[in-house]
């Protein structure tokens, strides 16, 4: 649930951006994703390739150097063997002390430079019997310790590295034979070192930041040819394959080891991982730079594209809003041949159409209004003329008939008096007809002015008017609570007057008159009803009930002009309501009318108007 909400938040957040911002944003995100993915994949590829190449070079180099050093150790052994088997040395070992000087010279010859620290001649019991000069070994104690290290190999061999003080030495032992018999050994100690110059040469051979180490195969002593170092082969079984390693300074290195043939030594070469990966890292920097440039270009292009779309859209929107608010606008100029251009053209022609239609409509409305106004004026003056001109003669007829009856009563027979009464009665009826007809015509033109109506109060006031308390007529009157409505006060009052007076009129022959007034809700309307126990009407004729001058009872039975219900129908339909009736002959009838429920807004407006 929370996730969904969050997701919605994100969506609404992106929606909050305008289209103009969203397009570059999406392009930027898309490019960013692509660039990151591409860079990552190609960087990993390049890095692995670099590591692979580095490893291969490392292996090749270590193999090469291993065989090179193996060769040189073979050379040393051969030279030593040649010296050991010289005649002077053999004779000296066999006891010919006269040969001591010559033997010593031979030993000294085996120290061609100062790295050859010591040459010792050992007898059959591995006891030193002669040694070379010892002035190059410093300090003295180191020399003594070299003397104490007595190898026991019978065959010619290179010995393991030994550490003496700060220096590393290794022995070269060859047996001295006489007539196929070993009569002693020749032991040479060599300082394992290199000059900075030779190291530089090596370095150039191997490449920058490469280091060469020598050590015993058992891992006991390691040297970088300048001093002893700590170096660990992580696993001897893996020693033929390159491995990664952190050196003493904490830098990651790529390393490979190779045993040197015919010696108990191992050489190790390390490449700085940083150098190996340098090309890959350079590649990564490049690709990031290119990616950034691509993204920037993408954003610019996206911005431009969205601007190209948005600007015409904005112009169209502004024009649409102007049209919506009824203003006349200039045609929108979008000078392009694409969808937007088509849209603008369509919009412009629509704008013209709308304007045209609006003008036509306005003109039509104006014309109609003028026509209606003139028709209305005609109707008004017509009504006025009718009421004025028709009433004047009627008044004269009634007036003079009355004068006849009053002033000449002595000359009139009873029949003449009866006839003058009929003349007067009918003339008066004509007057009522004219009045009602005018009232009916007036309702048709009525402007409904809706206000809040307290129905309950209105009905009671109408009842009081129609049934003054002192008339003595007793009527069972049941009035429910009636909801307020909104409507034209005088028109709605007319409705109640007409319906109630009908109910009273048509039930007056009952021994016990009963009238019920109530209401109920029907959908969005309030239905009011007035029920009486009067003569009722034949439901077959109920279509005629609400038509002008249509009556279901004779004027002799019940007086009336046939306008009342037509008036009710007209007023209620002007209020968007309906009128209908139900009846059973001699049992009574019920008249209903519905009006829209009063809405709270209308009440509030009324109250504000009243307060204001």
């Amino acid at each position, binding site marked *: 649930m929370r996730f969904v909400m969050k997701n919605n938040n994100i969506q609404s957040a992106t929606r909050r951006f305008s289209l103009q911002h969203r397009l570059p944003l999406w392009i930027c995100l898309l490019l960013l994703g692509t660039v990151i993915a591409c860079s990552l994949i190609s960087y990993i590829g390049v890095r692995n390739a670099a590591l692979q190449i580095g490893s291969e070079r490392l292996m090749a180099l270590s193999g090469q150097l291993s065989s090179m050093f193996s060769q040189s150790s073979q050379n040393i052994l051969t030279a030593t063997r040649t010296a050991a088997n010289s005649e002077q040395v053999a004779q000296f070992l066999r006891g010919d002390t006269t040969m001591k000087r010559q033997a010593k010279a031979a030993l000294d010859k085996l120290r061609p430079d100062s790295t050859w620290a010591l040459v010792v001649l050992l007898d059959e019991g591995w006891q030193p019997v002669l040694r070379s000069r010892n002035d190059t070994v410093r300090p003295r104690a180191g020399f003594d310790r070299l003397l104490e290290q007595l190898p026991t190999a019978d065959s010619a061999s290179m010995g393991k590295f030994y550490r003496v003080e700060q220096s590393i030495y290794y022995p070269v032992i060859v047996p001295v034979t006489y007539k196929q018999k070993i009569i002693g050994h020749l032991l040479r100690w060599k300082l394992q070192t290199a000059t900075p110059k030779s190291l530089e040469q090596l370095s150039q051979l191997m490449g920058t930041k490469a280091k060469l180490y020598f050590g015993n195969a058992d891992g006991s002593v390691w040297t970088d040819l300048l001093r002893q170092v700590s170096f660990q082969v992580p696993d001897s079984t893996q020693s033929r394959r390159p491995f990664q390693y952190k050196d003493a300074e904490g830098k990651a290195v790529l390393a490979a080891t190779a045993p040197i043939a015919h010696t108990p030594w191992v050489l190790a070469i390390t490449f700085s991982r940083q150098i190996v990966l340098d090309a890959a890292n350079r590649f990564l920097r490049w690709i990031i730079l290119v990616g950034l440039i691509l993204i920037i270009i993408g954003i610019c292009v996206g911005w431009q594209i969205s601007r190209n779309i948005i600007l015409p859209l904005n112009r169209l929107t502004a024009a649409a809003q102007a049209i919506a608010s009824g203003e006349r606008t200039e045609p929108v100029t979008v000078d392009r041949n694409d969808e937007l251009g088509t849209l603008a053209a369509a919009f412009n022609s629509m704008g013209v159409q709308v304007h045209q239609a609006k003008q036509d409509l306005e003109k039509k409305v104006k014309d109609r209004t003028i026509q209606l106004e003139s028709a209305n004026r005609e109707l*008004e003056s017509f*009504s*006025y003329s009718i*009421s*004025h*001109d028709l*009433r*004047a003669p*009627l*008044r*004269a007829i*009634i*007036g*003079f*008939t*009355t*004068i006849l009856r009053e002033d000449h009563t002595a000359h009139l027979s009873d029949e003449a008096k009866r006839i003058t009464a009929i003349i*007067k009665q009918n*003339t*008066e009826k004509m*007057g009522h007809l*004219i*009045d009602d007809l*005018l009232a009916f015509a*007036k309702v048709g033109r009525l402007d409904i002015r809706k206000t809040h109506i307290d129905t309950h109060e209105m009905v009671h006031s109408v009842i009081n008017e129609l049934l003054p308390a002192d008339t003595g007529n007793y009527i069972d009157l049941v009035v429910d609570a009636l909801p307020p409505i909104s409507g034209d006060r005088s028109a709605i009052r007319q409705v109640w007057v007409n319906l109630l007076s009908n109910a009273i009129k048509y039930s007056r022959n009952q021994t016990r008159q009963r009238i019920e007034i109530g209401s109920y809700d029907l959908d969005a309307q309030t239905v009011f009803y007035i029920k009486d126990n009067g003569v009722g009407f034949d439901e077959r004729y109920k279509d005629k009930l609400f038509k002008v001058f249509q009556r279901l009872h004779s004027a002799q039975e019940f007086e009336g002009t046939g306008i009342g219900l037509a008036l009710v129908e007209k007023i209620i339909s002007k209020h968007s309501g309906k009128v209908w009736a139900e009846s059973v002959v001699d049992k009574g009838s019920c008249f209903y009318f519905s009006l829209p429920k009063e809405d709270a807004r209308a009440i509030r407006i009324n109250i504000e108007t009243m307060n204001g």
Partner: protein
Amino acid sequence: MNPNSVDVLLVEDSLHDAELTIRELKKHNMANNLFHVTDGEAALDFIFAMGHFKTNRDIGFPPKLVLLDIQMPKLSGIEVLRAIKTGNRTKLVPVVMLTSSREDPDIATCYDLGANSYIVKPVNFEGFADAIKNLGVYWLLLNQPPVTYT
């Protein structure tokens, strides 16, 4: 009859209506000094002592009441009313407008111009008779005219 001592000036084009009116006023003894003209022009001549009444009328002796029908040929009641109520020496004369129609669009105009009453003549005779009697009683007996003219 001395035209300078007229109580009621009846301006009514319908002779029948006039007859009924006069009969009713007579019945109550209020038509002794009644003068009847049948159109607006004559009414103005009488009130402003012009034309036919130039020699025998003094504008300083206006009637106590003018009963003025609205619908008349030539000058209508409205125009007569306007003339009376804008005349400096006649504006205080009480004028009661008579009409046959409730629908008359000129009720407001009449009051605007200063009419003192507006009466719709009922069709039935009893109503009409009552209205005329009440009018006479009110304006001729009950109402105190302004002192400026006597």
